[in-house]
């Protein structure tokens, strides 16, 4: 234990001493400065460690001058104080170290003095147990801060300092006044003393006014909306190190005072006030940052928002009606928030110091040139926006689940705000990773420390809180996730990484075999692991363009999916869901033109995840069993989350670009398996939740319509795509629409159809995307009109694509038809006849793009530029072969897949009978019809061979002619380009359906985005930059607070 007074006293003394010393030797002064800070760091650390390890149990009470507390000034250091103190000096040390690396700003000595004063003031604010002393420390901090802010001596910094000073003075006036009146009312200045006396005092309006005045002063310092203009200006104008310390440390001290004020000064409206100001600040700030162009101010908005969330949590934390467990969770969440925000935001500000321009466009592409910068930046952004396993995620999760159900609108507020946060942070991410940027400064040690601390804290939080929340992790999955991260080490050789990944997945399959049983989870687990292993095989790194982090992220996606399907608990499912979403975000972002796509993907992932989280929050229990819920809200929220991943209209907007622009190696997984997680989710949502609500059938009917419309419109749009992967993307989305219909029918036949189609869609769409990856790799473009005639160069790929296309179109002898047949049988049995018609039409329209793929890519004239391409790389060819053989085998023997599916559903009440049976001649027989797959296959192949042999024997000499030997009105064609019809294949059809393909949904989403940003733009104008205005806001808000909360009407 170190006496806290020592920290303050030694720092103060050293500040004076440095003031003198720096006249003689700058070097020694600096040495002394760092010695002091290191001492402070260790001293505060020792105290904090003492509390953590349990060696110190009682709060440390320091009597100054030997007077006992109520009379003398005292310092009171409990666990929270020790923590904040430690935090302050850590940040201060990091900031100072950053300065040292970068070169100390001039005048060194004065700045050192001010810096010491600032940190000691913040520590004093934290430690003190006396109100007037608090005021003094606040003033010390403020004066030091004014000086430091101005010390950059740019026009902006001076201006910011002045604004800060004016508003700060008003704030300290409020605090001083209220302290003095408090003394007048209670006769004491000691916090504990006042707290005990205050209970005996009747709360007259005047008295409440005094307390409110104190609170108003604090709220100004805590930067609540709209009296935070000064703070934003400071963030924008001041030296980033100063800002980092202010935002990371000093504000946290004020927050502690806020908590203390809430605890000691029993204020009846504290809860309401913190809700209004915290929530309001949080919500508004997250949105007005959308169009901010200056990165530092933008980070400022984010800081303000985070503080708002903290204030909000404080309101709940101090709410006496809260149950103890919730209180515990909120306390933990506050700690995590503080930690998260301090380190992440300080890191970001210090990173911003390394970039020359603070404008958004100045950040363009800098992530691509600076790997370490990218690491720190991504870690910080992920942590702030709440990506697992970083502390921000756990903080948000804990907070949400601690909020009582009668305040569920607060959840909405938090989640909407978080969505806004995602939008602008990933806009920054997008800007910073797009194109080729320039090299940035290398002063990254301090932010790197922050980032590492964040990761550590995240893991610690995971360990500490996951089980408390009821989140259960399969230890194998955790081990495999650890392996996945470890694959990063092999990054010097992509091939090695690839092989290592295969080994890890193989090991995973080996370990997971017992879990792959005949139940829903086991079925999907098998799909995920085996499917991923196959697709992983096809990611064979043919060139250096695969990113170093590709395989770790890929494996994380795979194993989080495995964890997801194994989850027996909604919250576990959610954690893995988020892990999967964000890991796939990382992967999508690797595509060279995918930055915008990744941004949109992030937004929609967040929409889905947050709405799912809200749904889970509203569920009566967390386990995956039948849950009774009332009303339509919960299923709606849950299903929205899953529909986003399935890219069902109108939530499909992300899919086109995400599928189209993500790395070619990753797209098969995205389409083949990740979208199936949405299927899994919807299935369990329908099974456990929607099945139990009274409006379940109509809800499912609407889902069915959604699926049908998705299938129809996406298919229609796919017809007009000229980019191979975008076409496949739309097709994929449309196909998942069929699965959704099957799920929505919720009859045995329907679910059989859905699961069959799920597996089938994985096979053929995985195959198509793998083939696309190979083709794009060989040809160098994904623009179909520039291909053509590749059948001459890639026969195997053509054959497998052909089979996959036949499966996709659902033409009988290949397995794709089984899903179609089951689906139509189920639909007609159910009597959803309009959906049947739409679905039928959709699958007919699908022939159009099927032909387009085959024709534009493989048939027609081989172009001059492609005349030397080769067959796809060998591993891809193997995967193609495996997949297309399995398509053929399933086509002949659908029972191979139907039997396991039947067993999956056998355990579910009401689903025991699959709705069809097998007969020898009729094949699969349902109540309505029959279909003999084996006969069709034999018949087709047999008669085809017969016809072929007959033809080959009898027909005339067949001469294989050259590519341009075509009847061309007697002309000799000049080049293949003249003859190839690849561009605008369906322009005539477009004229017929132009009303249907207007991108209405995209326009609506864009409109929503534009409207919100425009509105935010207007709101943002209240920060006029004029100090009079700022002061007026302060006064106005204070008056409003006084008027509404004193109880005087």
């Amino acid at each position: 234990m170190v006496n806290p007074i020592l920290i303050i006293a030694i720092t103060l003394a050293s500040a004076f001493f440095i003031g003198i010393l720096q006249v003689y030797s700058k070097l020694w002064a600096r040495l002394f400065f760092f010695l002091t800070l290191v001492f402070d760091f260790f001293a505060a650390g020792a105290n904090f460690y003492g509390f953590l390890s349990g060696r110190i149990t009682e709060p440390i009470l320091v009597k100054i001058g030997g007077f006992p507390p109520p009379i003398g000034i005292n310092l009171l250091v409990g666990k929270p104080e020790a923590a904040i103190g430690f935090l302050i000096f850590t940040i201060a040390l990091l900031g100072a170290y950053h300065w040292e690396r970068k070169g100390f700003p001039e005048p060194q000595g004065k700045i050192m003095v001010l810096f010491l004063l600032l940190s000691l003031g913040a520590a004093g604010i934290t430690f003190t147990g006396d109100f007037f002393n608090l005021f003094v420390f606040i003033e010390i901090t403020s004066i030091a801060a004014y000086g430091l802010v101005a010390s950059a001596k740019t026009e902006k910094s001076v201006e910011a300092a002045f604004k800060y000073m004016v508003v700060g003075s008003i704030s300290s006036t409020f605090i001083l006044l209220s302290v003095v009146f408090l003394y007048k009312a209670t006769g004491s200045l000691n916090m504990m003393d006042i707290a005990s006396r205050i209970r005996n005092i009747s709360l007259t309006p005047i008295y409440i006014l005094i307390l409110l005045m104190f609170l108003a002063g604090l709220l100004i310092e805590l930067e609540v909306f709209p009296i935070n203009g000064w703070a934003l200006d400071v963030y924008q104008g001041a030296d980033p190190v100063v800002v980092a310390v202010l935002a990371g440390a000093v504000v946290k001290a004020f927050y502690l005072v806020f908590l203390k004020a809430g605890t000691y000064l029993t204020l009846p409206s504290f809860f309401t006030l913190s809700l209004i100001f915290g929530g309001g600040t949080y919500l508004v700030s997250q949105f007005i940052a959308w169009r901010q162009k200056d990165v530092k101010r933008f980070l400022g908005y984010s800081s303000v928002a985070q503080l708002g969330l903290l204030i909000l949590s404080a309101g709940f934390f101090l709410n006496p009606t809260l149950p103890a467990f919730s209180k515990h969770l909120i306390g933990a969440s506050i700690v995590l928030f503080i930690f998260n925000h301090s380190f992440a935001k300080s890191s970001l500000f210090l990173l911003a110091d390394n970039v020359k321009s603070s404008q958004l466009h100045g950040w363009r592409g800098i992530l691509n040139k600076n790997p370490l910068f990218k690491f720190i930046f991504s870690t910080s952004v992920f942590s702030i926006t709440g990506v697992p396993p970083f502390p921000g995620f756990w903080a948000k999760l804990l907070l949400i689940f601690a909020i009582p159900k009668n305040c569920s609108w607060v959840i909405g507020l938090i989640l909407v705000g978080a969505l806004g946060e995602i939008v602008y942070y990933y806009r920054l991410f997008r800007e910073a990773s797009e194109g080729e940027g320039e090299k940035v400064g290398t002063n990254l040690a301090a932010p790197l420390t922050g980032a590492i601390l964040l990761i550590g804290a995240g893991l610690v939080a995971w360990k500490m809180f996951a089980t408390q929340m009821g989140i259960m992790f399969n230890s194998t999955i955790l081990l495999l996730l650890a392996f996945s991260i470890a694959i990063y080490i092999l990054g010097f050789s992509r091939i090695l990484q690839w092989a290592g990944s295969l080994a890890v997945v193989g090991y995973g399959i080996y370990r997971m075999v017992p879990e792959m049983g005949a139940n829903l989870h086991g079925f999907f687990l098998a799909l995920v692991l085996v499917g991923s292993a196959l697709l992983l095989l096809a990611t064979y790194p043919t060139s250096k363009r695969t990113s170093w982090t590709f395989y770790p992220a890929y494996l994380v996606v795979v194993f989080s999916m495995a964890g997801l399907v194994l989850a027996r608990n909604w919250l576990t499912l959610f954690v893995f869901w988020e892990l999967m979403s964000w890991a796939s975000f990382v992967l999508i972002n690797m595509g060279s033109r995918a930055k915008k796509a990744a941004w949109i993907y992030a937004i929609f992932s967040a929409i889905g995840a947050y709405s799912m989280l809200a749904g889970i929050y509203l569920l009566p229990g967390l386990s995956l069993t039948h849950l009774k819920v009332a009303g339509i809200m919960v299923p709606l929220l849950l299903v929205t989350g899953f529909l986003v991943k399935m890219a069902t209209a109108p939530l499909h907007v992300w899919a086109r670009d995400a599928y189209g622009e993500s790395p070619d190696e990753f797209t098969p997984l995205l389409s083949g398996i990740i979208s199936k997680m949405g299927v899994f989710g919807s299935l369990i949502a329908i099974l456990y939740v929607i099945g139990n609500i009274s409006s379940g059938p109509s809800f499912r009917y609407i889902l069915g319509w959604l699926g049908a419309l998705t299938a129809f419109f996406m298919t229609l749009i796919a017809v007009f795509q000229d980019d191979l992967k975008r076409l496949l993307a739309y097709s994929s989305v449309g196909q998942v629409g069929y699965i959704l219909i099957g799920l929505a029918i919720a009859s045995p036949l329907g679910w059989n159809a859905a699961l069959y189609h799920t597996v089938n869609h994985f096979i053929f769409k995985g195959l198509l995307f793998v083939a696309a990856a190979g083709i794009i790799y060989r040809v160098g473009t994904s623009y179909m009109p520039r291909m053509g005639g590749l059948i001459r160069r890639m026969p195997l790929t053509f054959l497998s694509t052909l089979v996959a296309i036949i499966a996709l179109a659902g033409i009988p002898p290949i397995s794709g038809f089984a899903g179609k047949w089951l689906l139509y049988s189920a639909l007609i049995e159910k009597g959803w006849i309009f959906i049947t018609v739409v679905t039928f039409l959709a699958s007919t329209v699908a022939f159009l793009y099927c032909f387009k793929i085959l024709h534009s890519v493989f048939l027609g004239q081989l172009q001059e530029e492609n005349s030397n391409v080769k067959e796809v790389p060998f591993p891809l060819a193997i995967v193609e072969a495996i997949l297309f053989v399995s398509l053929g085998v399933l086509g002949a023997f659908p029972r191979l897949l139907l039997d396991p599916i039947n067993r999956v559903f056998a355990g579910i009440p009401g689903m025991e009978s699959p709705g069809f049976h097998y007969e020898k001649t009729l094949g699969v027989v349902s109540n309505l019809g029959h279909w003999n797959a084996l006969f069709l296959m034999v018949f087709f192949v047999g008669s085809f061979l017969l016809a072929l042999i007959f033809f080959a024997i009898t027909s005339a000499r067949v001469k294989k002619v050259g590519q341009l030997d075509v009847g061309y009105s007697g002309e000799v064609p000049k080049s293949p380009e003249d003859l190839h019809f690849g561009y605008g294949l369906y322009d005539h059809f477009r004229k017929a359906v132009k009303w249907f393909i207007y991108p209405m949904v995209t326009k609506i989403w864009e409109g929503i985005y534009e409207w919100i940003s425009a509105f935010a733009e207007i709101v943002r104008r209240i920060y006029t930059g004029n100090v009079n205005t700022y002061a007026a806001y302060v006064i106005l808000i204070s008056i409003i607070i006084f008027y509404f909360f004193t109880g005087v009407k």
Partner: protein
Amino acid sequence: MDKDKYFLNEKPGKLTYSGVFKRIDDWTRARSLWVVAYGTGCGAIEIRPTFTSRFDAERLGMRMAGTPRQADVIIISGYLTVKTLKRVIRVYEQMQSPKYVVALGACPINGGMYYDSYNAINKLDLYLPVDVWVTGCMPRPEAILAGFKRLQELIDSGRADGWKKYIENLDWYRENQKKIIKNWRMPNYNW
């Protein structure tokens, strides 16, 4: 342009003309003449009435084929310039055997009224194996039909073997063709 890459550079082999079905083959070939629609000169306008209601060539089993690949007969309908000849040769060679040439009018025979033209050829049979000549300037549809009737007789009796002659004497024809087509710019044989 790389000709070998894009065109089949191979001379056609000789075709035998026998078999158990020879009689039926000749019979059907005579009654199913598909004509490639290639109007080279003023005779093109006479083909239309021949094939439509008034004269109705379809009753002989004839019909228009849209592409040389499916056609049996090419009608040289009138004068033939060097430029057109080049295309006609390509079209003819792209037709599948057995195939027949019917020449209409005086111009293919001896140049007709274009006997002194600098670009209308005078003797078609130097360049293509003509099976039936229909004289006149221009012959009326009745005459054309009569010509086709004659062609049918020739085919039916197995005497319309211009396509065989062409392949057997391809070198001779080619020499004649290349004599007037200075810059060949085509594959050696148009498949």
